[in-house]
């Protein structure tokens, strides 16, 4: 028998403690809905909950993905912005001009802006930023591509900067509007990458105060804020921003995120899922902000670089046999609209061709017969020379939301009726990249966010079939068409708007007519916020929300 020394059961004490804890919990109340008021109210701290992965670096020059863009929009600003019609408007640059040969651009800069560390914003600062993005040590990906054609930056005067290009670039202004190439304090950029990643310094309405990893980033008001983009109207007598600060949280689980919004723990959430949006529709205290991302639409790419999709008839047969429309309706509950374009609906130059995507199973069967897939095996799949008509479809579970993954399952079922065996492979991000690098796919869906139609060149020019050393390439449909290449190259170089529009239209027609892609919908970007939040808007550039003019009803 063990020792006879006996202490009073400690468990009892723990029971009491637990009960006390529960009681304490009961006394904390919920929040009451705020009073509606038309006049902006200054003050208050807002909590934002992001469902995206926590960035590994708060400086969007480094790497350059959407989660970084979301938060960096609150403290960094760009040379130019876009208004709601997609027109380029002044921001940190007040005016600009392109040389006749398109090889140089001059930007006149605002002379009354300072970074939040006191460093003045000037031509040297622009040069330092472009150099930072282009420095391989920065490891920029998105920003690096956006500025690829800039060869030299010359500080002509204190507040006049000239960008010299290696080739004319009709997308330069759109590229510069993106937060991935926003302006940071040159003095702050001289710090180590570790330091700069933890607290980048910009000119924006908020300042990064502290970052508790996996908990939150605390942003505080920039008291000296003077530089909203030109399309923002500041009410007389008001100074932006209204909020004292933002607590930026990371809540990866979609149900918890919504529960946190409902309970008033947070006021704004992103990545709202279709079922949540519908359920929020019944809630008076919750408002939706739908901000489709620019660049490419979400689409399924058909790998034309290898059998069986190297045969255009097989591609068309696939597209004609799947009823995407019905799937979107039933799985997205009306929160996503079907797209028929390679470009997002927010791109003014997008070309939409609904007729090419009507379901026609008879036509599909005829096309497959013509292509030699005449027999069927005992499971009902089409067969040619003893080979089953099989399509591999790696699905990135990081990038495809559950509703989209279900949609792919419906595509799989529809395609089966037509005789295609679609094999879905749910993969984590790195494995998914790996499958693409190995050319181990026939179907794939990959998002691509970029301002402007130049995204078509990145996605469908044959240059993008050549894999980078990593094996990654953006032309996942492996479209290899000299005529298309020519159109895209000329569109990127022209300085005439009408010519640019016409070239991009022809380019999109080739992509759509060639059955290379099956457009689904815009890149979904739904935000839900408490009705106490006012003045929240999405930037017309990359559709990230900005809190510069946001205020909380008291």
């Amino acid at each position, binding site marked *: 028998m063990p020792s006879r020394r006996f202490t009073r059961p400690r468990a009892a004490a723990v029971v009491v403690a637990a009960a006390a804890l529960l009681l304490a919990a009961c006394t904390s109340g919920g929040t009451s809905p705020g009073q509606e008021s038309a006049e902006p109210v200054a003050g208050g701290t807002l909590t934002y*909950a992001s469902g995206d992965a926590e960035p590994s670096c708060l400086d969007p020059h480094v790497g350059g993905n*959407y989660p*970084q863009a979301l938060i960096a929009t609150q403290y960094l600003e760009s040379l130019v912005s876009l208004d709601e019609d997609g027109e380029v408007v002044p921001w940190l640059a007040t005016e600009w001009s392109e040389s006749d040969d398109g090889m140089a651009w001059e930007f006149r800069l605002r002379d009354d802006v300072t970074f939040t560390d006191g460093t003045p914003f000037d031509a040297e600062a622009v040069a330092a930023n472009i150099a930072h993005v282009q420095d391989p040590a920065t490891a920029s990906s998105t920003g690096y591509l956006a500025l690829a054609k800039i060869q030299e930056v010359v500080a002509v005067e204190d507040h006049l900067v000239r960008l010299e290009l290696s080739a004319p670039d009709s997308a330069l202004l759109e590229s510069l509007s993106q937060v991935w190439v926003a302006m940071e304090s040159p003095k702050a950029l001289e710090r180590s990458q570790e330091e700069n990643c933890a607290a980048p310094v910009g000119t924006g309405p908020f300042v990064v105060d502290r970052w508790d990893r996996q908990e939150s980033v605390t942003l505080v008001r920039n008291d000296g804020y003077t530089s909203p983009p030109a399309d923002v109207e500041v009410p007389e007598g008001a100074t932006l921003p209204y909020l004292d600060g933002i607590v930026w949280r990371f809540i990866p689980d979609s149900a918890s995120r919504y529960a946190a919004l409902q309970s008033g723990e947070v006021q704004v959430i992103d990545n709202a899922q279709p079922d949540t949006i519908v359920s929020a529709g019944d809630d008076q205290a919750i408002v939706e902000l739908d901000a489709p991302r620019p660049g490419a639409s979400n689409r399924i790419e058909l790998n034309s670089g290898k059998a069986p999709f190297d045969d255009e008839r097989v591609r068309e047969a696939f597209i004609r046999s799947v009823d995407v429309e019905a799937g979107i309706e039933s799985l997205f509950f009306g929160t996503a609209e079907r797209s028929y374009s390679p470009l997002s609906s927010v791109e003014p130059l997008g070309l939409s061709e609904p007729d090419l995507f009507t379901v026609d199973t008879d036509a599909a069967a005829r096309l497959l017969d013509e292509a030699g897939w005449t027999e069927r095996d005992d499971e009902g799949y089409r067969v040619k020379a003893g080979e089953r008509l099989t399509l591999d479809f790696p699905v990135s579970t990081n990038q495809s939301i559950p509703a989209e993954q279900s949609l792919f399952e419906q595509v799989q079922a529809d395609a089966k009726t037509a005789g295609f065996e679609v094999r879905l492979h749910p993969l984590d*991000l790195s494995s998914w990249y790996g499958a693409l690098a190995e050319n181990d796919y026939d179907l794939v869906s990959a998002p691509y966010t970029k301002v402007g139609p130049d995204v078509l060149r990145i996605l469908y020019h044959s240059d993008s079939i050549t894999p980078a050393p990593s094996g990654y390439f953006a032309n996942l449909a492996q479209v290899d068409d000299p005529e298309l290449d020519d159109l895209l190259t000329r569109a990127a170089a022209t300085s005439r708007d009408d010519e640019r529009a016409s070239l991009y239209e022809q380019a999109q027609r080739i992509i759509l007519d060639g059955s290379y892609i099956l457009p689904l919908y815009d890149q979904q970007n739904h935000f839900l916020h408490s009705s106490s939040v006012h003045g929240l808007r999405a930037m017309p550039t990359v559709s990230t929300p900005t809190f510069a003019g946001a205020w909380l009803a008291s």
Partner: protein
Amino acid sequence: MPGTRRWLLLRAGGVLFVLWASATITFFALRLVPGDPAEAILGGPGSQAGPEALEQVRREYGLDRPLAVQYLTYLGRLVSGDLGQSYSLHKPVATAIGEQLGATLTLAVCALALAWVLACALAAWSVRGGRVAWAIGSGLELVAAAVPHFWLATVLILLFSTTLGILPPVSVPGPLGVVLPALTLAVPLAGFLGQVMRESLLTAMESPFVTTARARGESEVRIFWRHTLRHAAIPAVGLSGWAFGSLISGAVVVEAVFARQGLGRSLLSAVQLRDVTLVTGIVLVVALAYTVMTLVTDVADRLVDPRTRAVAR
């Protein structure tokens, strides 16, 4: 006691072996999975890296060298106590772990305590309640032990936050924030502990010392707390090492659902980002804690119970 010293040395060697094995297995397992770490380092979703940037990253992190060289370099650094640099966090692994360890330990300790409270409370109730209560108790334990964390977490959030509005659905500073996450981890663990206890509870209740106590006129409640529970708890206490391990694996889910800081969440994102140094760092810390806890329980057992000493020899 030369036997004890030899035993301790053997056990310490075992600890080192477990640490080496976990570092090695983790290192190679992450490299066997397809995918390019350099691509992941450069931002992941929605960003496509240029060739120069990728080359730079590979050079900087030594990813361009042969795998064997990378492994040996890594082991060499580990031996000198350097856990390396996390490329997904842009900071030393030791710092990254240090920032998150406290939150996970708090959660694990609270959950363990809560699990004991729940298991004992259920046992106490069902022992008093006769045959029906006994059946209900053991049924509840079975269900509790089988409940998956993610499901339980969602149900608890729906109940306590969305419907009743008394507890925050995501972690908040202070003790309130830990209640739901700890409860989520505690319920399945309580099920396991309860099941283990119930067996020995049964034997203890039929033991002569219980009969003696009854003969002395002690109440059933008193007999339970003073005699049978103590007897029944011994095997469950021995499970503490295992329980700790299970709590850490549960933390991966729970920390994500409740948006709590912690090593579980670090581990999840590190695996997704192929951050080999961070993953191995976390695995090492967890393995160390696990083996040390097992060692401590064994030593305690040996000191308390002479029977185990005889067996160990």
